[in-house]
């Protein structure tokens, strides 16, 4: 039980730290700050996937990998699964989590909608890193319309 809380606290402190660091620099735009957080997430995801897929059989294809992300991976990280996975079979996937763990602690209304992106940047990085290590290069963005649900858009980059 206590492990979850520790992770959440660490995550929110991490965001706090990065934001405050960036305020010292320039006020150019908030968009830049999140790249640091996203990179931390990328690095984490890249490494953790090695551990998590140790016992798993090999993935057949891309869709299989996505399903793994939605189920086992999400459970391992956030103790629940993704509620909805949609794809257009052309490399775009949308993962919807109706009560995203980091957002559930904030009030569900319009009040914190603006700062919600900060809390999902880390997770975007995690997804991107995990997929990168599995051999799928992609671009991950997140969209928060109603707190606390969150949609992750994954666009696979085909080279």
């Amino acid at each position, binding site marked *: 039980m206590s492990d979850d809380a520790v992770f959440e606290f660490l995550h929110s402190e991490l965001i706090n730290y990065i934001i405050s660091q960036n305020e010292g620099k320039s006020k150019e735009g908030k968009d830049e700050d999140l790249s640091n957080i996203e990179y931390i997430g990328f*690095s984490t995801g*890249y*490494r*953790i*996937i*090695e*551990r998590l*897929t*140790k016992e*798993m*059989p*090999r*993935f*057949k294809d891309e869709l299989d990998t996505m399903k793994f992300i939605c189920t086992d991976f999400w459970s391992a990280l956030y103790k629940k699964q993704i509620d909805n996975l949609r794809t257009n079979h052309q490399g775009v996937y949308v993962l919807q989590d109706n009560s995203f763990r980091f957002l559930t602690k904030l009030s569900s209304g319009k009040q914190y909608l603006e700062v919600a992106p900060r809390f999902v940047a880390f997770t975007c990085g995690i997804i991107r890193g995990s997929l990168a*290590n*599995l*051999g799928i290069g992609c671009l991950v963005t997140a969209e928060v319309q109603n707190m606390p649900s969150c949609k992750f858009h994954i666009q696979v980059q085909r080279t």
Partner: protein
Amino acid sequence: MAVCVAIIGKDNSPKYFCCLNPDEELGFQYKVLSSLDVVEEKLNTTNKGTNDLRELYLGMLYSLETHKIYGYVTNTKIKFIIVVDSTNMALRDNEIRSMFRKLHSEYADIVCNPFYIPGDAICSKSFDVNVKNIMTGTV
């Protein structure tokens, strides 16, 4: 009892190579390099939908006169190769599999090391010691 262990990265360049007998290293490097071809072939042919594909363990890749080469590919496309002396008949499939599992967990540990950048060569003394233990079967 393995004589040689190699970890090959996603781009097929060696990340880690360890031989019990350093003199034979060059020869083993050649053998392992050739076995990569077989690994790739096996990975490609899994499209045919046989059952083997669900396993990470690839089985025996090559049987040379004096050595046997076994392969194992993780989901992240990292390849482990173990070369075993042919004369050692005692080693069975299960033992090889367990060696690979231990190797995989060692590798997972080292990847989680924040100072290790995935893609570089692995130079860690504790990793060396652990791998040598796995190879000699003292773990």
